[in-house]
């Protein structure tokens, strides 16, 4: 697995840029990941709200929340989520939130 430095910390990162050690994530790491994923950096409050929501859900349930739930609970429509993270909720926002790449038929 290739290694990379994010916010001064060495990480194992997969070929598509997802960090493999979610426990080492920090806000500074998120900002570093956001350079490739967020439409604006440093991330404005809405981006952070989404990232924190995904991360909290992941820590509780071991998986990213359903896209529909994520939109509804934060009062964002999907189009806006794509505007914030052009690669979408899974490949963009989840990556910044320090989740591993989504798996299964999602």
């Amino acid at each position, binding site marked *: 697995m290739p290694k990379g430095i994010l916010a001064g910390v060495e990480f194992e990162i997969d*070929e598509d840029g997802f960090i493999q050690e979610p426990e080492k994530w920090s806000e500074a790491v998120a900002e570093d990941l956001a350079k490739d994923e967020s439409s604006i950096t440093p991330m404005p409050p809405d981006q952070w709200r989404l990232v924190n929501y995904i991360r909290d859900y992941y820590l509780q349930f071991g998986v*990213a929340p359903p896209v529909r739930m994520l939109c*509804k609970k934060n009062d964002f429509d999907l189009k806006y989520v794509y505007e914030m993270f052009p690669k979408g909720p899974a490949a963009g926002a989840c990556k910044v939130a320090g989740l591993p790449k989504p798996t299964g038929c999602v």
Partner: protein
Amino acid sequence: MSKKKTKVADISKPSEQMATLDLKDLMPLPYPLTEDGLKPMKSLTEDQKCRYECSLDGVCGVGMLKPESKEEEERMVKAFLEGLKKLLSKENNWTFLQPLLLSLKYCAKCQTCNDACPVYVGSGKQEVYRPTYRSEVLRKIVHKYIDGEGIFDRLTGDDFELNWTALARLIESAYRCTLCRRCAQTCPMGVDNGLISHEIRKLFSQELGIAAPELHEKGSVQQLKVGSSTGMNPAALADIIEFMEEEIEEKTGKKIKIPVDKKGADILLIHNAGEYLAWPENPAAFAIIFDAAGINYTLSSDLVSYDAVNYGLWYDDFQLARVVLKHAQTAKELGVKKIMVGECGHAHKAMIVISDRVLTGEMNVPRESCFPLLEEIVFSGKLKLDPQKNNFPVTLHDPCNMVRLMGIVEPQRRILRELCPQFREMTPHGVDNYCCGGGSGFAIMQGMNFPDWKMAISGRMKVKQVVDAFQDEISPDIKKLLSAPCSNCKGQIRDLFRYYELGPKCGIGYTGAVEFIVNAMVDIKQPYLDLDELTA
């Protein structure tokens, strides 16, 4: 256009890349995608090329690291040949030996199957994607190293020494076939090249520990360990079911308690867990319909049994059997009369068909597709339905496993013909359908440049078919939907629609099948299908 002729023996000759994909060669796409069909595909980085095996076509699907030494290469070749002997023996291949032997023996090399293959045709007829190409490679290996029938190959010079280069390309090439089995359907001899791809994948997984990571470590291994290939644990399932109940109440005004682990229910309904995460409106629609029709069913929250998927079907018989046993065991514990599979094509095949080889005696619980029951409900009069609520253009995608393999052709069509006044078929359809291009796990394989390949090549034929089906009303102002009753197909179709911008350019969106039933229900005032959102 002068293309170098590719010979079977070329597979063992080291070169950076055996086949080069030229965008100009790809099958042309209809209006308005004439230009979009030529988006450049991502190349691997130089560093990735050094580390990963990608010398078939410059695409990396399996994500296999290069062996570190000559000795390791030799060890792998030896292990492959040992595995091949097992693949051809009754004791070690109790699942698919007979069709494999017949397929290896009876190919008449007429090449009738070539034009049936959406990958081969979509690619502009790349030789390495020809459905008979990888079969011919395997056949030659068997003749030379196993049954001693290779004299003819030696005489014609189309004979090769098995080396690691050949094997690395062979396994990648087995992941360029979606196992749609359209080739087998058209073969006058009944040779099944899709099965040969499957058996190659199986040999590599069972004997060499090589499989696409999305199917194995993050797929079936994760399902058996955590409960679902999505990583969703039982607490997440409970949370999402609660969310679905809220959504149902908000959208339909109905207060429905979705039954979970209900002992003595008639039916254990198992969805692909991807539905809960990516398309919760699908299992929610099942809940609304079954509630309204008074069906006595339950979901399960048991590890493995809340996820219908069985990725072992695509690459490993052991993993397949482990998951099948768990599903059957849950049904036994709940005391249900049967298991019903939701809108998931490969789960239909794994749970209903192939598991017959695994489940014996009292474990052989009755198992069936959701579609006959849904059809019965729609035509029973139990639900008040108004087709005018679905009065927009609709077409249907046929998941290969349900339709070509199992012959479940009419129930879903009778429902849509009844409930969608502007329903039209795509060409071809039914058992002659084309794969979405995401079959056999491609929909979930997302590593490196594989997504570009499946968008540009394996999904090309499906995009053409969908756009052709709506060609008379292609303006983006006319909103229209594709019904795709399979989670894996939906994942691929979602990615294809985004890649080719079918929403903004053509006004085409997608959903499953049950959503059309709920959308037609008279007592639900708000539309269940939000056309603007679905075609955005």
